[in-house]
């Protein structure tokens, strides 16, 4: 059993926190794990991605081959599309719909959404709005993680919640509760999409 995940977004959006939670849960499940991150210049508002590979057998490459990715998890809709060549024909895209516009030639959002929906398995949700509704506007990344839990398979929602509690525990109970609420709201929203 394996799960190859690409986490994507714009530098500063918080994709590495998602990776940290999934990584924690994967280690708890005694899975093999490799996680390639982007540090340095791109973190200044450029496109960033992390390749996260989980498997019950040892993993060789830190990078996911094209066509092998099971799940693209994106905090930004155009950034989800950027990694389409890596997605498996049966893979899922789970993406935030709120665009992050910091370039002059950002495409029309309707065109981006249309192309996203041309992919067979896609879950789109407004993570920013859902995070605000749960009273935790800075937890859009946990909303996204929650939405992905429906198609994550290799680690279950309960383990991911435990991961959130473990990762955020040093910031206090209120922060943990807010992030779990955001996670639950994302998971709930994803149920509107058929698996």
């Amino acid at each position: 059993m394996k799960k190859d995940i690409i986490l994507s977004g714009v530098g500063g959006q918080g994709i590495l926190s998602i990776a940290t939670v999934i990584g924690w849960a994967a280690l708890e499940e005694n899975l093999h794990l490799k996680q390639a991150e982007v540090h340095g210049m791109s973190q200044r508002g450029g496109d960033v991605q992390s390749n996260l590979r989980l498997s019950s057998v040892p993993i060789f490459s830190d990078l996911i081959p094209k066509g092998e990715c099971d799940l693209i998890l994106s905090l930004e809709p155009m950034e989800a599309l950027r990694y389409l060549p890596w997605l498996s024909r049966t893979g899922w895209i789970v993406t935030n719909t709120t665009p992050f516009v910091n370039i002059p030639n950002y495409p029309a959002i309707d065109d981006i959404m249309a192309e996203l929906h041309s992919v067979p398995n896609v879950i789109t949700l407004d993570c920013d709005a859902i995070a605000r509704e749960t009273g935790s506007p800075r937890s859009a990344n946990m909303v996204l993680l929650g939405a992905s839990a429906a198609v994550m398979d290799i680690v279950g929602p309960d383990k991911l919640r435990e991961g959130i509690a473990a990762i955020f525990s040093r910031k206090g109970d209120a922060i943990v509760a807010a992030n779990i609420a955001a996670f639950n709201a994302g998971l709930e929203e994803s149920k509107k999409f058929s698996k």
Partner: protein
Amino acid sequence: MVDKHLLLGDEALALGALHAGLSGVYAYPGTPSTEITEYIQRHPLAKERGIHCDWCTNEKTAMEAALGVSFAGKRALVCMKHVGMNVCADAFVNSAVTGANGGLVIAACDDPSQHSSQNEQDSRFYADFAMMPCFEPSNQQEAYDMVQEAFDYSEANHIPVLMRLTTRMAHSRAVVRQAHQPAPENELHFPPKDRERFWVTLPGISRARVKELAEEQAKFRQDSELSGDNMYKDGPDHSRGIVTCGIAYNYLMENFPEGCQYPVLKVTRYPFPTRLLKKMTGSCKTILVIEEGQPLIEEKLRGLLYDENEGNGFVKVKGRLDGTLPRTGELNPDHVRNALGLEPLDAFGEAKMTVPRPPALCQGCGHRDFYTALNAVLKKYDGAKVFGDIGCYTLGYMSPFNAIHSCVEMGASLTMAIGAANSGVWPSVGVIGDSTFTHSGMTGLLDAVNSKADITLCISDNLTTGMTGGQDSAGTGKLERICAAIGVEEDHIRTIVPLPKNYPEMEKVIEEEINYHGVSVVICRRECIQTAKRHLAAKNR
């Protein structure tokens, strides 16, 4: 005892060094090497043992200080990005001549594909011509294990060891198992009587030592061949043999989850294990070389008389030089799959609705306000040229600023400005950050003062080493005094605060100093927006 850690390749190397009884890490920040030193700085053992882990002013001072630690019999680690090797090259190459006393390991992190660098030079070439052993782990566990081996080898053979990582390993996490308790630090002890003279590189002495070093190469090669680090694994299909180095091994095996049918030589340690290669050259008439970085091994296997049709007389060599693999850039499993002649995996094509999203200066960054003011002033002059430098502010080249005309390497801003001014360029402006200025700008400023160059140097001081994530900057709080001590006239050392409300004053100061026909320094100072946010969050916690 077995303890599991989820670590970046950089962190695995750092932990391995701590467990090897490290007494000091000496480094200048640089992607992708920064996290080695940061890990040691955060580790409780560093505090408990008082291990030196402050940032150095540049890679040369780092390398030299580490050599001093080695002289004193203790274990030292030097860390840098690949281009830092150029800065410390004099000390590095000559450290093979002095030799090591306490274990000395130099960790160089190469950046193929230039994710955050101006070139993709391969540090293995430095080890090669310095005649120094080089270790190149292929995964995080090997990084942890091999750095300990490197310290032992360095001490036993009185030779520094270069440890090479590449971006993808440096910045990728995997589980690392710790198998033993941290070793104690070495006691202070000086080079033994028969080697102490080698620390003085007078030609009469070092001539003998260079000869000895050359003679030691055969032993180093044999050690490399006999060590378990380099591995030859036979396969049933001898239609080709494969040589892979470091992380490239993973991309090969990714394509053969059930095992590779060809004979494979996995190289993680140099000098190159020639004897192991000969196991495949008897039967394999084609050898595919898969190496991350520049074609070091491939060139050696080909030799100068290589013929594309005939091979080198023994074998045909495939790899980056004949286009089997891309000539430049980072490898990945797909490149290697293609090189092996395997069908590409079924995949979606590129999406239509994507455009590039290059990095940019942060909103609210002081460099932005500085460039806005500088551009407003320079509009008034024909022929003004701005020589930039290495740091976040290099992004001032991008739209909407389009503010700099060059960026080469650490410190080249003001020295290029001197040369351009000597050649008739006016205004000739240098732009450098605070950390880059103390790294490699101060000596250039002395040149400018001594030659009374007509330049204006702008130090965009954000009180940190920003691009690499906000490490301490060596000159913080000292820049005015440094410039004055170097000999810049005090009237022409001006300080401004880059904020939109200050544009009129900023422009006035910059214009006055451009119009001054001598060396002037404009220090443009406001804290990095990223570190300011972090400091605020820490205060409110």
